[in-house]
């Protein structure tokens, strides 16, 4: 496929926004159980929710650039019964609304306990956050399934797609949370940092596994099944267009194999390898700038990762578009 920058930014930005929200909610739950220091509502949660919303909004904005008719985007909620894309279009604003409510409740300090003082996790913010987490998971599933449900794009048609979208989103959110807490909640830096490193390494395992899987794919379709001629030597001589077509522009990345390989190694290094020592160094030295650097490096890596995710996918329609003449 030819990676569309709009979708690359959509998926990476909302992933980080979702991850940041999960990180905040985990910290809050830890606070309620007494395992973590309790944080200030405005300085940490409200600000953090705003940051998360900024990322989600950025992703939403990017997605509009993918559409030919953005002014009709509202129509995309219609087919939620059958289309994962439609489900995502519903889940994203719903999740954003939940994050907004969560942040607003913290900002206003409305955290009356719904179940009486005896249950520490009963406040309004917990409930709103819990709903938010459910919507967050829904959103991860929707985003992943958009790609995973197309069975003939075999690089995508695997549980790894879902797992990787989720793990990479959560990991990048935790890395961001580490940097954010260095400013807003220094007591949580160690907690977030440790999880950021752990999640990044776990994500590496699954991403590497998916790379190995995709390397071994033997594609079901070939030129023989595409045109229905049983012969091992078939060559396309003309594709019915002399200057290319939508089919040659949308489904080919147009880069060399070497370029693709380089992007693979670049994203492996930037997303998984580089952030770990950076975080480590930041944790031990306490230099806030290093946290920000770790997040930026990883985010650039994630953009490369998503680019590669699209570029690596081989669409069977390409069988019909091999030779221009």
């Amino acid at each position: 496929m030819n990676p569309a920058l709009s979708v690359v930014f959509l998926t990476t930005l909302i992933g980080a926004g979702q991850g940041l929200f999960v990180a905040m909610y985990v910290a809050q739950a830890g606070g309620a159980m007494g395992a973590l220091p309790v944080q200030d509502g405005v300085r940490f949660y409200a600000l953090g929710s705003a940051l998360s919303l900024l990322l989600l909004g950025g992703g939403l904005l990017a997605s509009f650039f993918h559409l030919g008719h953005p002014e009709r985007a509202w129509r995309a909620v219609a087919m939620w019964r059958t289309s994962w894309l439609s489900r995502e279009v519903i889940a994203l604003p719903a999740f954003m609304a939940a994050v907004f409510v969560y942040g607003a409740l913290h900002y206003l300090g409305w955290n009356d306990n719904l179940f009486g003082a005896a249950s520490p996790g009963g406040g309004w913010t917990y409930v709103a956050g819990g709903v938010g987490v459910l919507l967050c998971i829904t959103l991860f599933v929707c985003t992943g399934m958009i790609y995973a449900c197309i069975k003939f794009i075999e690089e995508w048609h695997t549980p790894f797609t879902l797992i990787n979208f989720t793990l990479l989103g959560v990991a990048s959110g935790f890395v961001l949370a580490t940097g954010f807490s260095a400013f807003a909640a220094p007591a949580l830096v160690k907690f977030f940092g440790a999880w950021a490193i752990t999640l990044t390494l776990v994500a590496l395992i699954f991403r590497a596994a998916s790379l190995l899987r995709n390397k071994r794919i033997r594609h079901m379709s070939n030129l023989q099944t595409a045109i229905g001629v049983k012969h091992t030597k078939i060559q396309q001589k003309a594709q019915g267009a002399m200057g290319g077509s939508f089919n040659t522009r949308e489904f080919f990345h147009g880069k060399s194999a070497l370029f693709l390989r380089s992007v693979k190694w670049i994203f492996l290094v930037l997303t998984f390898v580089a952030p770990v020592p950076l975080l480590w160094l930041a944790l031990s030295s306490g230099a806030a700038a290093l946290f920000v650097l770790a997040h930026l490096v990883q985010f650039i890596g994630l953009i490369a990762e998503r680019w590669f995710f699209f570029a690596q996918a081989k669409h069977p329609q390409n069988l019909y578009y091999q030779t221009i003449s």
Partner: protein
Amino acid sequence: MTQLALVIDLNVCVGCHACVTSCKQWNTSGAAGPMSDDNPYGPEPTGTFFNRVQTFEVGEFPNTDTIHFPKSCLHCEDPPCVPVCPTGASYKRKEDGIVLVDYDKCIGCKYCSWACPYGAREIDEHQKVMKKCTLCVDRIYSPALPEAERIPACVMACPTNARLFGDIHDSESEVSVAIRERGGYALQPEWGTHPANHYLPRHKTKMHIHEDELVRVDNPLKKEGFPPHDPREPALDDIN
């Protein structure tokens, strides 16, 4: 149930592109607006087509065969492109099985084109909506056209009659008989899309000459039990 479809005979298609041009002519002049054409006479012509004819060479020189392969939306009976459409702009008609795009609803997200394994959908770069073969839905029922012309423009244009049009759910229709009796097959059957359009295979006409058709076994000049004729001896024809 009705499922309209094309059956394309690869054995007689000569790759003249008459179907391509007549398709474009009809569909660019319709109520849905023109189909993009950029640089039509420039070095990099590109545009939207519902139908393209591709050419493949099968085999290795000198034993090659050229196959001209017209390709358009196959109006799959189980179209993967339809359920993925978030707006419902892509739909399959119950009454005749034609897969259509409602250009007024389409948001141009291109997701349906990703979900078609055949590359049958093309976005119109100017109208920014997804386009594909409509099986000339605006011809085949049109009371404005004479009865004989109520067929897709490509079918009408084909000079070799390589394109048949009809209902593949009617077992006695021309298309069903052709599929049944002449080895009609579906493209990429591995994905379970059940394309309605079928292709009739290319087959070379060969003469099969058997040895005993060259040498007459019942040569009257030979009698049973006689030793076979020695070619060094003069035959009856040689003796005048």
